[in-house]
């Protein structure tokens, strides 16, 4: 036997096999989700992807577990992803036709991009068939689930407005009261700075954190119609004098050293911004209601000792906005992949109708200090540990004249990327309010 030939054969075998496998793997992607699911009536399996992160993931898992136990024929398998990974992962999965049956999301512009690409099921008829499911949910939560008059997602989980938090001990140190107006805020800034306490904690690297300031200032100065016009795609809507005024006030606060030192290098992911507030290094923070749970978890005795104060964002003197207005996430949203099999869709709809917003699931949210998107849920607050907080969030959400959706969720992903980019530059004083408006007017209506 010729040794050279055998080596050659060996080489071609050794090298050929992995290439063949790799190429085969490249070519086999396609809509294959759950092809193994049997399609006999009510039995079937569905997949469900959602966000990880404690304490929320526990509630999501418990809800699915209850569903699987109660329905022996149907099974939902879950997979969890961290926030930023999730967005990319879902996008890739949709592109490859490998999406899960149930898609977790934020509604608004992101949902619209799925609808535009025919990726999610129209649920309008599901809601007319199951009127009871629809009627118990806050009506305001359906706004971000409705596109061109059709409902594409089930509002679920919790309502999370943005809250003005403050550290009561920090205010005692300078002998001041929480601000009642924008003027008060600007007066407080030098007082806190003189005591080496940062007036506001802000995780500026995450950018949407900065955006919450603009959301409130736009509303307080010009009313909700300023952003409505932007959302509706009206020409040059960002150049509204109220918008320019809000942008200028934001930069005034940056220039007055209103935000913690180095805020633009702090990311919200590791909760360093919350840590500044509960360690007393910062006096105030504008942040989502979901941070209450983590401050309670990680802040030692800060929350349980009654040192955390909270209120709605104060009005701006002479502003047109209603001080009851708020902004944030009116809910989280579950959609069904249009590429799923009929059996999978049935299982998903059954979950939507029975367990997604069930009493037990609601209780799970209430127990960790969140308010479910369900009417009259305040009756469950009576013996909850955080009854006062829950009641505050419930009242704020229920009494808000306008509950606006977070801008980055409301706009299309492309437009919101330009928005966040310019917001980062605005807070960095790299662009003037006028340049900011000009840059964003270019992408309006996209």
């Amino acid at each position, binding site marked *: 036997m010729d040794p050279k030939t055998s080596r*050659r054969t060996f*080489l*071609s075998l050794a*090298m*050929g096999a992995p*290439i063949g496998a*790799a*190429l085969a793997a*490249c070519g086999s992607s396609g809509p294959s989700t759950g092809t193994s699911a049997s399609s006999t009536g009510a039995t079937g399996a569905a997949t469900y992807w959602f966000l990880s992160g404690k304490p929320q993931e526990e509630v999501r898992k418990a809800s699915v577990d209850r569903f699987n136990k109660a329905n022996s024929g149907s099974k939902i398998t879950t997979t969890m992803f961290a926030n930023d990974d999730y*967005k*990319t992962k879902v*996008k*890739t999965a*949709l*592109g490859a036709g490998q999406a899960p049956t149930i898609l977790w999301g934020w509604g608004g512009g992101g949902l619209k*991009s*799925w609808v*535009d*690409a*025919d*990726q999610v099921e129209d649920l309008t008829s599901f809601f007319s068939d199951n009127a009871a499911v629809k009627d118990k949910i806050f009506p305001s939560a359906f706004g971000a689930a409705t596109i061109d008059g059709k409902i594409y997602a089930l509002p679920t989980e919790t309502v999370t407005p943005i809250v003005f938090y403050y550290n009561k001990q920090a205010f005692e140190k300078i002998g001041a009261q929480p601000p009642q107006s924008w003027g008060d805020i600007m007066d407080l800034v030098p007082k806190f700075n003189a005591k080496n306490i940062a007036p506001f904690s802000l995780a*500026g*690297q995450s950018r949407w954190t900065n955006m919450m300031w603009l959301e409130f200032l736009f509303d307080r100065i010009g009313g909700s119609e300023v952003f409505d016009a932007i959302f509706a795609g009206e020409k040059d809507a960002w150049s509204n004098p109220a918008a320019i005024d809000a942008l200028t006030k934001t930069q005034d606060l940056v220039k007055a050293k209103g935000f*913690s*030192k*180095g*805020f*633009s*290098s*702090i*990311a919200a992911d590791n909760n*360093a911004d919350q*840590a*500044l507030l509960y360690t007393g*290094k910062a006096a105030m923070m504008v942040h989502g209601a979901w941070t209450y749970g983590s401050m309670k978890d990680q802040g030692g005795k800060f929350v349980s000792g009654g040192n955390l104060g909270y209120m709605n964002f104060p009005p701006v003197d002479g502003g047109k906005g209603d001080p009851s207005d708020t902004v944030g996430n009116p809910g989280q949203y579950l959609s069904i992949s249009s590429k799923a099999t009929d059996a999978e869709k049935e299982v998903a709809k059954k979950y939507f109708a029975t367990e997604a917003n069930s009493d037990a699931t609601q209780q799970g949210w209430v127990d960790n200090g969140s308010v479910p998107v369900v009417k009259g849920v305040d009756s469950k607050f009576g013996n909850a540990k955080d009854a006062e907080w829950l009641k505050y969030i419930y009242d704020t959400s229920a009494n808000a004249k306008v509950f606006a959706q977070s801008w980055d969720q409301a706009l*299309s*992903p*492309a437009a*919101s*990327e*330009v928005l966040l*980019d310019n917001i*980062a*530059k605005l807070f*960095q004083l*790299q662009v003037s309010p006028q340049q900011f408006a000009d840059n964003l007017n270019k992408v309006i209506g996209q």
Partner: protein
Amino acid sequence: MTVAAPPGIEADLPRKVASQAGGSGRVAYLAVPALLFFVAFGVVPLIGVFYLSFSNWPGFGDITPAGLSNWRSVLADPGLRHSLYVTFLVMILSWAVQTPASILIGAFLAGHQRYREWLAVFYFIPLLFSSAAVAITYKGLLDPNFGLGAGLGIPLLQQDWLGEGRLAMGVLIFIVSWQFVPFHSLLYQGAIRQIPRSLYEAAQLDGAGRVRQFWSITLPTLRYTIVTSSTLMVVGSLTFFDLIWILTAGGPGDSTRVLALDMYIRGFRGNQMGPASVIAVILVLFGLGLSLLFRRIGGGSASDSQLEGA
């Protein structure tokens, strides 16, 4: 790549041996597996990206043709010019810091003293860490409120390291250098050890000091190593992504947003795969252009031998 054996040696070989070693038929056959891999994972995606740059695609759903609109909008976007500027700044600064540092450390480590070999092991450690881990660690150390400066109470360290544009760029260059200088030092160490001792002995006889020997012998002989190492640094700097993404996410503002980040943000954050592909094509072209340029610089006189007696 062409096989470039020093002509002096090739000429001395008997013809028979040379033809056995370089029989073109067998060499071509052995290249097939590598070629297949390259086509499947290099060329095919490249064609896909090129095609996508002329289409609109949010990352899922249908791909629709867009003609030249993506190219027009990206090329007219001041964001692209800024990213190009930042990319070149990172490239030039990291080259300018790393090259002298690597040559000096390499020359130092080339000595055969015991303590230098020990130090070489320690110098090499940063290269073993993944960029992501390095970025997370530095981000923690440099945190303005909970980092090293605040913890130790040293005013000099209490800068807004990652929150101020120029400082953030400086920090980035520092970390890149810290991480990659060991690798390039290793290249130089090897190259310097190959310089024949006789050259130095001759120089000593002529009365040249150590500094003079470095400038007149070490540095000129290192020419090809400098070209190789510079190519790796410059082309490699085009691909910095993980480190910057974790450290600053391109911020503050857009001070550290290099092309690779710009591409990712447009494609995966903004759902615009078309414009992102335009940037990908631009990146590929720059990478190719730069490596060609360096091959020109280095390969122009390949017949110059570095070997003793040639």
